[in-house]
């Protein structure tokens, strides 16, 4: 029986940049054991020597010529921006004052 503690979930949530409430952390920790048991079935088979498939198609890198083509105008590109300034995305402070 697999399990994850409330603190394990909190660590994962922080890696995934989701500020979960205490209730969410506790709930997810309680559900995680049975979910992990279900997916851990992939470990039941002897998979030695089996190749991994990351993608269903046997395609190589796809290249194109690097030529100028019509694209979005700055207005279009910024049309969904939560905040903008001088034709740029305005984002919250990236570096802390102390850094």
């Amino acid at each position, binding site marked *: 029986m697999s399990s*994850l503690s409330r603190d394990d*979930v909190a660590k*994962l*949530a*922080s*890696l*995934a*940049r*989701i*500020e*979960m*409430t205490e209730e*969410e952390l506790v709930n*997810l920790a309680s*559900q*995680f054991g*049975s*979910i992990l048991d*279900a*997916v*851990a*079935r*992939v*470990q*039941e*088979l002897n*998979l030695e020597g*089996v*190749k*991994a*498939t*990351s*993608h*269903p*198609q046997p*395609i190589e890198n*796809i290249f*194109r010529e690097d030529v100028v083509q019509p694209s*979005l105008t700055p207005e*279009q*590109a910024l*049309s*969904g*921006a*939560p*905040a903008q300034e001088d034709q740029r*995305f305005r*984002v*919250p*402070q*990236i570096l*802390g004052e102390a850094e």
Partner: protein
Amino acid sequence: MIKKTAAQMSASLTSGETTSVALTQSHLDRINEVDSKVKAFLHVDGENALAQAAKVDAERAAGKKLHPLAGVPLALKDVLAQEGVPTTAGSKILQGWKPPYDSTVVSKLKQAGIVILGKTNMDEFAMGSSTENSGYGPTFNPWDLTRTPGGSSGGSAAAVSAFEAPIAVGSDTGGSIRQPAALTGIVGVRPTYGAVSRYGLIAYSSSLDQAGPFGRTVLDTAMLHEVMAGHDPKDATSINAAVPNVVSAARSADVKGKKIGVIKQLQGSGYQAGVLARFNESLDLLASLGAEIVEVDCPSFEFALAAYYLIAPSECSSNLARFDAMRYGLRTGDDNGASAESVMNATREAGFGREVKRRIILGTYALSSGYYDAYYGSAQKIRTLIIEDYKKAFTQADVLVSPTSPITAFKIGEKSEDPIAMYLADVATIPVNLAGICGMSLPAGLADEDGLPVGFQIMAPAMQDQRLYEVGSALEAALVSKWGGHLIDQVPALGGAK
């Protein structure tokens, strides 16, 4: 008018018996009448739809050569970007977002002159099997409004089965077209991976996602499939090959001498009795039409569900990192001095629903160092074994078959507190996605115990999509002649149906 098939509507438009404006208006009226009960649509785009219809009518009057589906209305899953029209993928994090561009699927629909009625409800970011995970509330199954229409493309499936649209677009990552088609008594196809461009399809799990058509008949589904498919330089995984001739396949209705493989692992325990009864009847019908039924063994399929629920969450944890509150979508907690990281954390907490968070956390776990090989790595190897099982099975049969869903439509709320029970809804559809091949669900009748629709699934090798339509049209013709009409004719009226 709204009860006609898309092919019949096309004929009525061509002959001048009706106009696209009249046809579109009758569907908008129908939506107005029943969608407060069904809740298939997140956004109804009546004004643009009527303008597009008027444009097609004018072109027809001017003698311009038009696509057969020109002027026929359609419902679009809200996972596809449409320029200037709200596109949310069922998530609060995208509430109010209007894409500045069209997805390739939408461009192709517009080019064909198809009238887009609006955007349909879905499980948030296509994660779910009931449409209950939508950030905007559930969709209700037209066969029984206390039940789910399946998911994640439940809005599109419900719209077609409630006669709000003759055809619809969905997307299928683990069964999200085929399972709702089964639960609402209509036809749904997941094309071969790479056959339909993913450009502008909001990503959930990129190696599994594929958009595809819904219709009330096999032919209607084929007509829409042909419009959507084709190579697109904007999608590097798009297949550069001719689109299989699915429309003529849908008219062929021929299974004589074809070998049909029943997958041993996709039946039996866990499958509802009424589902198995309708499935076996359909097999007998196919045999009576001259098909040869064989049994095939796919031992790795037993592990497909576990592999899927590692691969899809892993890919989603990476794909959904784009919702960072910086360039588009929701931003919360942006008080003076708040850091970008805290804004991101607060926004993703507020914008994502429960199932999306669950899958992001599961994916983050499966990809983390120390667990990668045991979980994601093993799942990728199972994926190889599933592909090999299919390869072997397709040497013994032209198409493979199974029930689409082990159960008929379940009650709203019945499984929403139990993620594992919900995941089992996809047990028969997931292998197709892992292998990147194509699959169809078509109605096989109603289960005796609950009177709800049962889906029959057909699977074919990559880029052999026409085989789905050859076998599907043959089975459909036999069933329709047995029933004296299409199954969808038996759907409740929902009040006021003409």
